C-alpha cells in the first residue's frame, strides 16, 4: 500500500471485531468488501492445511494437502476506537476448512446470495449454523436478476424466521453498510447476550 502512515494504522487503543462475508463464487464478496472498506482491500494467501481440527468431516480429507487460496479483507474504523475487519471467504466447498478456522473469533457472518442461484448459498449458511455463529442473509440485487418477495426467498433459502434477510447492492456503500447494521442488531437480539 502506498497510503500515508496515518491512514495505514489503526488507533493505538483500538479493539477489533471480525465479520465474515460468505457466499458462492462471483456473488459479490470482493465488491462488497471494497464498498465498505476504508482501505484498499488487501489480500493474504492462506494455506489450507488444518488437518486434525476437521476430523469430523472425512469428506474433506482429500483436499487437505497444500492448496493455497487468496483471501480478500477490508477494514472499517468506527467511533470509539473500534476497528471492524471484513473477511471475504471463498465459497467453494473445498475451502471449508479454511472458512471454519476463519470463523474462530468472528462476531458473525453476512451471507451474500444471488436470486438466480440461491441454492449456492446453502454451503455458507450450513457452515455458519454448524459454528453457531449468528448470520444475516443479504440478497445482492444484480441488474436483471429476478426479484422475489420476502416469503418466497425465505422459503427457497429455508431460513429460520429469526434470521434476518435483507436486499442490498454490494456496489453501494450505504446499502452494504446496512447489511452490517442488520447483522449486528441481530447479534444484539440474541437471548444469550442478556446480562446474567
Amino acid at each position, binding site marked *: 500500500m502506498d497510503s500515508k502512515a496515518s491512514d495505514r494504522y489503526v488507533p493505538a487503543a483500538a479493539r477489533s471485531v471480525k465479520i465474515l462475508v460468505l457466499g458462492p463464487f462471483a456473488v459479490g464478496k470482493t465488491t462488497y468488501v471494497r464498498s465498505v472498506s476504508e482501505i484498499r482491500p488487501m489480500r493474504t494467501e492462506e*494455506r489450507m492445511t488444518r488437518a486434525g481440527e476437521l476430523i469430523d468431516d472425512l469428506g474433506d480429507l482429500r483436499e487437505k494437502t497444500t492448496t493455497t487460496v487468496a*483471501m480478500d479483507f477490508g477494514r472499517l474504523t468506527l467511533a470509539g476506537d473500534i476497528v*471492524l475487519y471484513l473477511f471475504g471467504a471463498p465459497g467453494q466447498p473445498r475451502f471449508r476448512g479454511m472458512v471454519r478456522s476463519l470463523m474462530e473469533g468472528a462476531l458473525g457472518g453476512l451471507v451474500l446470495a444471488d436470486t438466480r442461484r440461491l441454492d449456492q448459498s446453502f454451503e455458507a449458511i450450513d457452515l455458519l449454523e454448524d459454528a453457531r455463529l449468528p448470520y444475516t442473509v443479504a440478497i445482492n440485487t444484480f441488474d436483471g436478476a429476478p426479484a422475489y418477495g420476502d416469503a418466497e426467498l425465505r422459503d427457497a433459502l429455508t431460513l429460520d424466521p429469526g434470521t434476518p434477510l435483507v436486499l442490498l447492492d454490494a456496489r453501494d456503500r450505504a446499502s452494504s*453498510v446496512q447489511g*452490517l447494521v442488520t447483522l449486528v442488531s441481530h447479534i444484539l437480539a440474541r437471548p444469550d447476550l442478556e446480562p446474567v
Partner: protein
Amino acid sequence: MTRRSHRRRGMVRSYTATGGRAIPSRATLDEATLLKADPKLPMAGLNAQSHRVMDLCRAGVLSVAEVAAHLQMPGAVTKVIVSALVDSGHLVAVAPFVPAAQKHDREFLKKVLRGLQSI
C-alpha cells in the same frame, strides 16, 4: 452445548483471560488480532523476517492480516513469526472481541452498532 462450540468458546476465553496477551500458540492468533509493538525491547538478534514485522509494527497498530498483506507473506508464515515475537515480548497481541453473556459485552456491541449506523 456441542463439542464444537465448546472448543470455539474455550479458545477465545483462554486467550482473553490473559488480558489480551497472546498465549504462545499459532492456533489462538487470529487474522483480526491487533499487534502493538513494545518500543523498549531491542531488535538485536531478531532474524530478517522478524525485523520486517517489527519495523512495520513499531510505527503503529495493525492486524495480523494486514501485516501479512503489507509484507506479502502467507498468513500461516506471518502467524509463526508473530507468535514468536509475542513470546519474546516484542509484540502484544489483542484478540478480536467476541461477545459473551455479559453486560459489558452488550455495551460494546451497542457501540459497534452505533458506529455502523452513523456511517
